């Protein structure tokens, strides 16, 4: 019963905002996306401090909802830093710190002090799909149920946590030796003059020396997914959800139950991917931190792309924003791994008779050579080819008459 009420409230909230739905449809920016919480493993190795600093500033890729939980850097002391596979230790950390429970708390915008939940975020992120549901279903109750199934099981179940392990690669020994020399000289000069600024100057020089030789990082990204089954959803609504319509006693019980819940919500380990960053292009980069930021951002994007290639549930589905004669456009590009050899299937969301959302293929498309948008980090500053396109144009291979804005693209063929 509680669940039906929650569903209805969410639905009514959505019905009251038809203009917002249309606007979002028109610009093609709002669509069902997975939610992502990106974190970094704490390291004490060289450049770890600088890497941490830039990681704080890196935005979550725009093809995901930012599901940040406040803690960006994870100190993991249970395994040595050079351990190859840290997945188990990370899983233990996430479990011990109740990250899955916090993911749910964020989805339902749970107030820490009162324990009150609401569906505003679920509703907001589910708006795009709601319009599609409006078109397909007329029964208010049924539609509401489908909505919460869609927004709940699908959206919450599509929440991912990526724990990144970024390690600087000391490729250039000579550069390192030069760097250390500068640092020691800086320290000596600083000690003699009693000034930190002297040391800073030397350290700046040292940094540049290293970076010019090619700042490179090894990145391992560990992917976890929220386990949000029907059983867990029911458990949440029946035992942990609370709002101001409940009695004070019930609110208290539910709040304490949720705060003390350590084993009900879980994250599933999906997999990992390791890669070394590509060669640094210094064009358009004026500061050391920008080099580090650029290298890290691109390496992280690359890992996300590779994780998507390996794990279907993590694949991004991007809507078609524009349809022309024989071509379609979408706001994806090199950042998402689009290249000349990519192939995408065009999907239409439909519900089967059981109310479950399925994706029906209506056609296939291929990027047009020279029309691939370079949307990688700082591509504009680098004046990279294709950086100014704003979207990638795809040639329609099959299903030419069935294309319309809003259909979803999903990469289908990987090299």
């Amino acid at each position, binding site marked *: 019963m509680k669940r039906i009420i929650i569903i209805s409230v969410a639905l009514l909230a959505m019905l009251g905002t038809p203009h917002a739905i249309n606007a979002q449809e028109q610009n093609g920016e709002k669509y069902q996306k997975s939610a992502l919480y990106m974190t970094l493993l704490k390291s*004490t*190795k*060289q450049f770890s401090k600088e890497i941490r600093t830039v990681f704080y500033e890196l935005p979550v890729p725009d093809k995901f909802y930012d599901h*940040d*939980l*406040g*803690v960006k850097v*994870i*100190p*993991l*002391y*249970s*395994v*040595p*830093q*050079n*351990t190859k596979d840290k997945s188990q*230790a990370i899983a*233990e*950390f996430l479990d*011990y*710190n109740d990250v899955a429970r*916090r993911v749910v*708390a*964020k989805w339902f915008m749970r107030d820490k002090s009162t324990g009150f939940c609401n569906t505003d975020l679920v509703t907001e992120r589910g708006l795009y799909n709601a319009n599609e549901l409006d078109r397909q279903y007329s029964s208010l109750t049924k539609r509401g149920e489908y909505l919460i199934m869609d927004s709940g099981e699908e959206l919450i179940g599509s929440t991912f946590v990526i724990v990144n392990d970024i390690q600087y690669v000391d490729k250039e020994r000579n550069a390192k*030796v*030069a760097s*250390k*020399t500068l*640092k*020691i000289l800086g*320290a000596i000069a600083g000690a003699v003059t009693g000034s930190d600024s002297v040391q800073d100057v030397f350290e700046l020089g040292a940094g540049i020396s290293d970076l010019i030789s090619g700042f490179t990082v090894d990145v391992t990204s560990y992917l976890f997914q929220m386990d949000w089954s029907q059983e867990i959803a029911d458990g949440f609504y029946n035992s942990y959800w609370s709002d101001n319509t409940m009695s004070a006693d019930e609110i208290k019980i539910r709040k304490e139950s949720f705060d003390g819940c350590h084993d009900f919500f879980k994250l599933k380990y999906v997999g990992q991917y390791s890669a070394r960053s590509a060669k640094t292009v210094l064009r358009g980069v004026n500061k050391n931190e920008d080099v580090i930021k650029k290298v890290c951002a691109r390496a992280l994007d690359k890992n996300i792309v590779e994780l998507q290639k390996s794990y279907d549930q993590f694949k991004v589905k991007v809507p078609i924003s524009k349809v022309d004669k024989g071509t379609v456009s979408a706001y994806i590009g090199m950042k998402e791994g689009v290249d000349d050899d990519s192939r995408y299937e065009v999907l239409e969301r439909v519900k089967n008779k059981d109310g479950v959302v399925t994706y029906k293929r209506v056609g296939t498309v291929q990027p047009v050579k020279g029309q691939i948008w370079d949307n990688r980090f700082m591509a504009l500053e680098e004046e990279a080819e294709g950086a100014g396109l704003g979207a990638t144009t795809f040639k329609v291979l099959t299903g030419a008459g069935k294309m319309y804005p809003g259909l979803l693209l999903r990469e289908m063929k990987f090299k």
Partner: protein
Amino acid sequence: MKPIRKLLLTVSLCSVLLAISGCALFTKNTGETFSKMATISEAKAMLPYYQMKVSHVIASDVYRLNFYFYCISPERTQMAVYRSDQVFLRFKNGKEMMYNPCVSRSGVKVNDDYYRFDVIIDISKEDLKYCLEMPIYSVEWVPSMSVYTEMELPMDKYINMAEIISDFVFQIPLTPEQEQALMAPQKTLIDESKWDY
């Protein structure tokens, strides 16, 4: 042969012999690390060089930490009789751990520029785990039998114990129980106030 030519030849031979003996001495004393260094300037750039590793498991929860470092002595001739009886491990958060080395050796002159110091300390399992959590900021060597009252080593980077322990675990044969005890996961609980959503 003219006397002057004899003298020149003798001097040349002596120079060659001295050079050979000098190289042999250098090779003998410098050890693996310094033999890899191409030039003295490179070696200087790497100073202070240190290496730590656990060499033995003394008891079920006591580990012998053996480390050495190189430094440039300001008064080289006297460093040969240098002796220490206290070692401080100083951590980034300001915490200090003091040890009485079970073995302390005098600095060994490895060449004209460097001395090598070996330290052996026994460290408890708890301390070892603390070292894993917190980078060591500096190692301070406080001598007692010396004209010097104190020598601080200008460490230019943290000693990464996590890496050292890792090496140790894979290099030293341990019983499965010891290994398990050392590597037992340390659960890190993030303070509740830092979670913000």
